C-alpha cells in the first residue's frame, strides 16, 4: 500500500473508532483537539442526515431520544456513500432490535415508511404516461400489457395504522390527535406527484394488484389474481385513478415500438 494511504486510513479510524493517530500534526493545539472537531463533524453530519430523513420518528420519540438513537445508529452502521441522502436506509432494522425502543413496536414500520418517502422525494423524474397511445391499443393486445410503476412508488405493509400515524405528524396537522394502535393494520402507498410526496392507505385488493404489476405481471394476470379473492375489484376506476395519480407511468407492449 502506498505510504500516504496509511495516513488516510489511520486518520479515518481515528475519526470513526476514536483510535490514536501518529501521522498528523496540529501545531497550535494538541492533535486531540483537531480530531475532536473531525469526530464532531462526522457525527453531526450523519445525525443531521437522519433527522432530515426521519422527521416523524423524531417527533414520536423526541429530540433527545432521537439524538441518542442516532449516535448508537452511527456506531453500528457506518456511512457507505458520499451522498448523505443515502444514509439511514437501515434505521428500520436498527430500531427493531434497539432495546430502548421496544415499547414502541410500530417504530420500525414508521421508519420503513419514512425511508420510502425519503426515496420518493429524490426519485428520478418521470414523463407522464402516453394516454393516447395507451387508449389506442387494440383489444386483442390489451390483456398482455405490462405497466410500470412510478420510480417514487413504494408499498409498505404494516400491522399498525402507519398511515394515520404518518399523516398526524405532517406540517399543519392538529397537535391534539389520539391514535388507537389497535385500529387495525394499514398498507401504505407512497408516491410523488407534482413534487409532493403523498402517503395514502390501500385496500387489500388494491395493494395486491399493484404488487402483481410491480413484479411484472401482465394486466390480465394481475387482474385475474385479484378478482379471484375480491370479485368486486373495480379495474376500470382504479386504472383511471392510478394513471391520473401518476402511479402507473409507462407501459410495455409491442404496439409501442410500432
Amino acid at each position, binding site marked *: 500500500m502506498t505510504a500516504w494511504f496509511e495516513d488516510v486510513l489511520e486518520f479515518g479510524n481515528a475519526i470513526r473508532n476514536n483510535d490514536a493517530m501518529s501521522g498528523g500534526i496540529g501545531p497550535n493545539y494538541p492533535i486531540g483537539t483537531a480530531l475532536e472537531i473531525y469526530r464532531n*463533524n462526522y457525527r453531526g453530519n450523519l445525525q443531521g442526515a437522519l433527522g432530515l430523513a426521519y422527521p416523524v420518528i423524531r417527533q414520536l420519540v423526541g429530540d*433527545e431520544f432521537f439524538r441518542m438513537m442516532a449516535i448508537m445508529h452511527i456506531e453500528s452502521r457506518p456511512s457507505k456513500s458520499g451522498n448523505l441522502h443515502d444514509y439511514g436506509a437501515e434505521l428500520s432494522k436498527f430500531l427493531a432490535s434497539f432495546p430502548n425502543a421496544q415499547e*414502541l413496536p410500530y417504530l420500525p414500520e414508521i421508519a420503513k415508511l419514512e425511508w420510502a418517502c425519503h426515496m420518493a*422525494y429524490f426519485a428520478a423524474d418521470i414523463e407522464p404516461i402516453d394516454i393516447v397511445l395507451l387508449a389506442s391499443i387494440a383489444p386483442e393486445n390489451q390483456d398482455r400489457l405490462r405497466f410500470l410503476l412510478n420510480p417514487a412508488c413504494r408499498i409498505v405493509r404494516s400491522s399498525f395504522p402507519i398511515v394515520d400515524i404518518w399523516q398526524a405528524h405532517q406540517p399543519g396537522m392538529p397537535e391534539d390527535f*389520539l391514535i388507537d394502535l389497535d385500529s387495525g393494520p394499514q398498507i401504505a402507498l407512497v408516491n410523488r406527484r407534482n413534487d*409532493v410526496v403523498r402517503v395514502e392507505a390501500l385496500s387489500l385488493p388494491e395493494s395486491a394488484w399493484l404488487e402483481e404489476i410491480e413484479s411484472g405481471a401482465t394486466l390480465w394476470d394481475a387482474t385475474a389474481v385479484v*378478482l379471484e379473492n375480491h370479485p368486486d375489484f373495480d*379495474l376500470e376506476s382504479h*386504472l383511471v385513478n392510478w*394513471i391520473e395519480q401518476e402511479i402507473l407511468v409507462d407501459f410495455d407492449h409491442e404496439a409501442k415500438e410500432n
Partner: protein
Amino acid sequence: MDRRHVLTAAFGSLLAMSLMSGNANAADKMNMEKCWGIAKAGHNDCSSNKSAHSCAGQATKNNDPMDFVAVPKGTCNKIAHGSLEPGKAG
C-alpha cells in the same frame, strides 16, 4: 369472470381520459405553480427540503458525553396501545 368485459370497460374509460388529456395537463401545470409554499394537510410541503450537504464545519457540538435518555418523550404518548395502557412509553 369475463375478461373481455372487464378490459373493454377499463379501456373505454382510458379512451375518455385520453380525449380529456389536453385539459388535464393544463390543470396540472397550474397546480405546480400553486404548490410553492403551501402545505396541504396530510402531504408534505413541496417546498420542503432535505439539504443534508454542506461544506461547513459543524457549529454545534455533537459528541458531548451521552446524557442518556432511555425513554422516548415525544408524540408517542398520543398513540394508545389498545391492549396495554395508553401512552405507557411516553
